[in-house]
């Protein structure tokens, strides 16, 4: 049983605390509605930010749903399979940053690579994987429905401009890392009776490869041929994204090209 004295102390402490919390409450309301404006955040000078290169082999993946791995039941996508392969060869010392966003088009990616933090992550990369353009060209299938060469030409021109900026920005952040730019396949090759989509996709790939070749250390990885003969075997049920098998074949193209001095012999 506590004595009278300690009860009294507890009461006094409790009373003091009550006053403290009441004051805090008043402060919270005052600050919320009439907060001092002198602490307003100013744009920071980010130029001094130093990049500390980690010792792990770093893969940064950028782009759309293909980078994300949409359609793969295991959720890995080609990035995941490339990472699996590298993990085996490099004794597990790799880091993967998958920055792919479903439905991303080249204009959005252009903004994404300008973000300071993305630039920092790119600077740390040893290789960069990139898929972009499928959503620009196909627009969720709308391009095929109203097929018009003039529209495609305008889309193509905008894409070339965007991708040029993207490559320039990536190279600014990281002049050394090899970029693997994955080309488009034609998911509509079986359903397209008029046969207009295949030349369009081929043409698109040719232009994309040409732009890539004007920058150092960009490898254009074709995927058109993988899906050319038996497209339905390698497509997910949405008939647009690759399935697990399709992603595996894509990864098999890229993974052997990646070399690192830390590789175990």
């Amino acid at each position, binding site marked *: 049983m506590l004595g*009278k004295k300690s009860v009294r102390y507890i009461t006094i402490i409790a009373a003091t605390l009550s006053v403290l*919390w*009441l004051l*805090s409450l008043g*402060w919270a309301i005052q600050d919320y509605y009439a907060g001092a404006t002198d602490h307003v955040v100013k744009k920071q000078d*980010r130029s001094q930010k130093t990049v500390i290169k980690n010792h792990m082999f770093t893969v940064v993946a950028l782009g759309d749903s293909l980078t994300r791995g949409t359609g793969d039941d295991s959720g890995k996508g080609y990035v995941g399979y490339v990472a699996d392969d590298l993990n085996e060869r490099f004794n597990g010392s790799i880091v993967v940053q998958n920055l792919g966003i479903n439905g991303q088009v080249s204009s959005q990616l252009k903004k994404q690579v300008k973000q300071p*933090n993305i630039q920092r992550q790119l600077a740390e990369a040893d290789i960069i994987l990139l898929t972009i353009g499928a959503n620009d060209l196909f627009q969720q299938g709308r391009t095929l429905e109203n097929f018009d060469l003039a529209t495609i030409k305008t889309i193509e021109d905008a894409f070339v401009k965007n991708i040029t900026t993207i490559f320039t920005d990536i190279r600014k952040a990281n002049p050394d890392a090899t970029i693997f730019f994955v080309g488009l396949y034609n998911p509509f090759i079986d359903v397209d009776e008029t046969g207009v989509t295949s030349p369009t996709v081929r043409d698109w790939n040719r232009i994309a490869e040409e732009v890539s070749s004007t920058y150092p250390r960009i490898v254009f990885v074709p995927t058109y041929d993988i899906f050319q003969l038996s497209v339905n075997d390698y497509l997910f049920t949405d008939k647009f994204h690759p399935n697990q098998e399709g992603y595996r074949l894509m990864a098999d193209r890229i993974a052997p090209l990646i070399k690192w001095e830390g590789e175990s012999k």
Partner: protein
Amino acid sequence: MNKLIANEMMKLVARKRLLVIGAIVGILVILFTFAQYKEVQTQREKLGTDDWRDSLQQQIIDMQNRLGSSRISDDWREQIQVSVQQLQFYLDQDINPSEPGAVTFVRMFIENSTDLFIPLLIMIVASDLVSSEHTLGSVKLLLTRPVKRWRILLSKYMTLLLATSLIVTMTGLLSYVISGIVFGYHGWNAPIITGFVVDGGNVDTSSIRLISQWKFLLMDFGLVWFVAVVVGTLAFMLSVLIRSTAASMGVMLASLVSGAILNNMVSSWESAKYFFMVNLKLTNYLNGVAPPITGMTLLSSMSVLLIWWAAALVLSFFVFTRQDVY
């Protein structure tokens, strides 16, 4: 009056309720500390880096991918959009929104316990302040004294306020001391961004300010204390109206839990904002989290709570002074 309060405090301390509450808080904090620690570890393993910027970036990308899905509801989409913009702002400013340390843990813990956990703790004390006197039969002894009835009730209410302050403080202290063992006792001066104005799915960052975490924590505690007082007063009223402790606890518990459920589904039922239970998450306003019903503000929520508080208080005194006791 002082003697009455001292008497009530004596009863409170003697019943060891506060110790029980302390034990509950202690156990929960240990659980959450462990959970948090595990989460940090798995995150580290998954991403392969220690850099908080990488994990924050990944969090943003994951949310953006969820936005791309067509199967999510509009409300949920707006919430995610708001979070993405806020996190992106933290990232652009190079500020870690959850700087590791005991202080951040306390902040997270106290913010997440405003609407259910802390009210429950207060309820343990408040629900039987009056009704237990009925159950024990000691109310007759109390009322036969030459003291006005309202003074007796007032002394009980003052005790409740004191107990509320003690419980809120105890929760803060215990979570600081226990989580600090794992996360370290730092983070008082970590910068926190406040002043996000949420409007639909958009975040207005024009009135954004940076404040130290200890200031933010104090404000959080002020709001949490206010909520605790209001909920405590309501439980106190029930304890006067319903003479059975179990029944008054049950009613209070039901309304608190219903509030937690309602919060997720009331967005299209506008008049629900007059319920006290959907207004309990006051700390969300400081964090810039969108309120459950559009149009709710800190002031409107506090006014609703104040009205409930005043009504409960008036009703308690009115009933207690007129009640027949047998």
